[in-house]
Each structure stands twice: as C-alpha cells, then as structure tokens.
C-alpha cells in the first residue's frame, strides 16, 4: 500500500540500526526512550525493532493506550448503561473485552445488553437517527486524535437535531500525562518518541515544555519501522551530542508544526479542558476533555443518570505501574499465568495496543 510499504524496507532498516549503533557506541551507560503511544508499542514489537537495536538502548512503553488508562469507574458506568432498556451503548471495538469491577461490555452483550460496535462516532449518530425511541450513548474514549471526530459528530447531531445522541466523554490529553510522568521522578527517561497521530492534531507546541524545562529530547514519529528507527536515530543524536533538547518531527509527511488548526478549533468549540482520572496515574490536572455547557444536551453524564456499582481495582494487577513505565509485564505474577489474552485480568492484556498483550504476542516466553 502506497506510503506504508516503502517505509518497511529491511535493507534501509539495517543501515539505520547500524547508524544508531555507531552513534551510541562511545556513550557511557544506558539510553532509555519511552514510546508514549500504544500504536507505537505494537509497531515496535511487530517489526522486531528491539532485536536490531544496540543493547544500551532500552525502549519503554508509556501510557498511550486509551483503553488501558480508562479507569474502572468509567467502565462500570458504561456497563451500567447496557443494563437499561432505554439505552443503546455504541463503542469502538477495543472497549468490549476490558474488564470493569465485575463485568465487561462483552459479558453484558451476551446477557442481552444492547451494545453496538462502531468504526466511527458518525456511525453511532446514524444508530441514534434510526432508533428515535432509544437514547444512544457513545463511549468517547481516546486521545487528541479521536477528539475532533467526536466534536464534529456532536456538531452534526446538533445541526440535524438528533437529540437522542449522547457522548460519555472519557477523552484524555497526552502532554499532561507526559508532564506527570517526568515530574513524578520515579522513572529515568532520556527521551520521548512522541505519538504521530496525536501530533497530527496538536502539532509541536504542547511538547515544548518537556524539551525546555526538563531538557528531554522529543521526536514525533510515524508508525512504520523506518519511521521509528529514524526517530530513534534523531533522539540518540540529540542525546549523544548533548545539545539543548528540542522537539523534532520525523513524521513530516503527516505532522505539521501547527498541527491541524481546523480540528483544534472544533475541539475547543465543543470541549473544555478538565482534570481526568488515569488508571495507575491518578487524577492528572488538565488532562481530560469535558463537553462544554453549551452542548450539555449531548453530554451523557448530566443527561442520563448513570448509577453504577462501587468500583474496585484488581489488587494483583500491575497495569498501573506498567502504564507509568516503572514495571514491565514480566514483573507481574499474573502475566502468562492467570492473565492471558484469552482470559485477560487487566486492560493492558485486553487491548491490542496494551503493553502486556504486545509482550505476550511478540516477545516470546
């Protein structure tokens, strides 16, 4: 497929790996780079990039899997919605198998709950249009990449006067989570591989504080193997040459320094920034998106009283620490024993972009 396959060339990949190795050869100590985005985590494992990098480069997965960082409280409310006959829950497929405190959307569907898996928020709007006697709740889980699609859908619902469409907003923002990670000091990172498609929307500016205030290099990367290798090459050059850290774009074919202003305008029109609860990271200031008062008619939370069970987390699951990068899946006593993709206990094993699922599938036993 054009603009995908040509960035997977093995010969060029080997050449890049060689350049990376030459660059870090004389560098004392390890270099730890965090790929923030779950889509990068999967791409890195699938392409075998870890195997061709020099040993002193360590890649660490971060909190960039929206399904994984969604707390049980949100899931339990979503599950509670499926038990009401007046509601239809519409969701992206990734959410189906994620366990809440005592159930999952998939289990509720097998018990007769009305749950529709959609590819786009617009598909959920269409379900609302064709089911005027029901209220359709769309589970708005995602980052900046997905937020403008939700904003556009809410504006379309208003324009078309589809008043039985509601969004349960669990949207989160990536840079505040990166801020929380670097400020926690529990983790040593030498640089960030920044998410390509989030950056398509937000551009360069939201990451600048990381380079400026924390002197940590950031490179916005694409998702094909050569993109990721080039991003690593750019990062190690910044680290080894010890120049002032900066935010660079590797994924220039898609990411503009200013992002997508039209998409940002739509996000600002419909949403306001608020604090948000992240699994394993707690409440992070200014890290979530809430529907503005002006559009509260489409906001599921005030419009529909959702009563859910009292949420609890599985105490043995270490997804929270994995999402913060302080532990890896093999540190977890449940990994590969009680927790497998067939019988997942934590969200990091459920989501195809979860770190545990990627380790299970690609990293061998």
């Amino acid at each position, binding site marked *: 497929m054009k603009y995908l396959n040509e960035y997977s060339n093995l010969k060029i990949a080997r050449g*890049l790996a060689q350049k990376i190795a030459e660059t870090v050869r004389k560098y004392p100590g390890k270099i730890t780079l965090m790929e923030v985005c779950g*889509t990068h985590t999967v791409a890195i494992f699938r392409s075998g990039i870890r195997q061709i990098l020099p040993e002193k480069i360590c890649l660490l997965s971060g909190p960039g899997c929206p399904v994984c960082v969604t707390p049980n409280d949100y899931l339990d409310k979503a599950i509670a919605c499926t038990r009401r006959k007046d509601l239809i829950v519409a969701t992206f497929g990734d959410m189906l198998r994620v366990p809440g405190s005592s159930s999952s959307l998939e289990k509720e569907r097998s018990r007769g709950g009305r749950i529709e898996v959609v590819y786009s928020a*617009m598909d959920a709007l269409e379900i609302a249009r064709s089911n005027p006697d029901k209220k359709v709740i769309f589970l708005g889980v995602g*980052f900046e990449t997905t937020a403008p*699609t939700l904003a556009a859908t809410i504006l379309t619902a208003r324009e078309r006067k589809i008043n039985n469409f509601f969004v349960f907003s669990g949207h989160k923002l990536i840079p505040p989570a990166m801020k929380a990670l670097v400020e926690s000091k529990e983790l040593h990172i030498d640089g960030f591989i920044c998410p390509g498609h989030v950056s398509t*929307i937000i551009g360069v500016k939201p990451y600048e504080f990381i380079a400026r205030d924390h002197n940590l290099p950031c490179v916005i990367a694409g998702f094909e193997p050569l993109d990721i290798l080039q991003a690593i090459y750019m990062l190690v050059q910044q680290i080894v040459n010890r120049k002032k850290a900066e935010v660079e774009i590797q994924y*220039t074919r*898609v990411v503009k320094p200013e992002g997508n202003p039209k*998409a940002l305008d739509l996000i600002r029109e419909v949403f306001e920034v608020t604090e948000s609860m992240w699994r394993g990271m707690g409440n992070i200031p200014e890290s979530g998106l809430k529907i503005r008062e002006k559009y509260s008619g489409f906001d599921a939370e005030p419009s529909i009283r959702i009563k859910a069970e009292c949420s609890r987390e599985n105490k043995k699951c270490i997804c929270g620490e994995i999402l913060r990068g302080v532990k890896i899946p093999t540190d977890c006593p449940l990994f590969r024993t009680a927790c497998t993709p067939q019988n997942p206990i934590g969200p990091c094993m459920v989501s195809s972009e979860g770190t545990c699922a990627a380790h299970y599938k690609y990293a061998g036993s």
Partner: protein
Amino acid sequence: MCLAIPMKIIEIKGSTGIAEVGGVAREINIQLIEELKIGDYVIVHAGFAIQKLDEKEARETLSLLKEISSIK
C-alpha cells in the same frame, strides 16, 4: 487506538468523500481538512480524514533514509 492509514481521495461530495486503499473504497468524513482535491492522500482515523499527506515530504523522508543508511 490512534491507528490511522493513508488513503487516496477518489470522490468528494460536500463534507464526505470516498477514499481508497489497497483496492478497498469507503466513505470518509473530510470536514477536518481544508482544500482537498481528488487524488490527494489523507490520513484516515475513525472514519475521518485527520490530515493531508504531503507527498513531497514523503519522498524526501525516503531519500533521506536511504542517504543515512548509505543505500544508493
């Protein structure tokens, strides 16, 4: 979940368009993109084009990669 792929625009009808990849065409929403024309490549996420793909940059990245890895 932030998965998005490049698709080629083959038809435009107001705020929607038909985009194609690997012989498969589907309707996508194009309202997040300014000045789109048939033949442009866009990055598609959750049924929306979220950015135009810059073909010149794409070619330049590839030649830079070849140069870095010393492949002629």
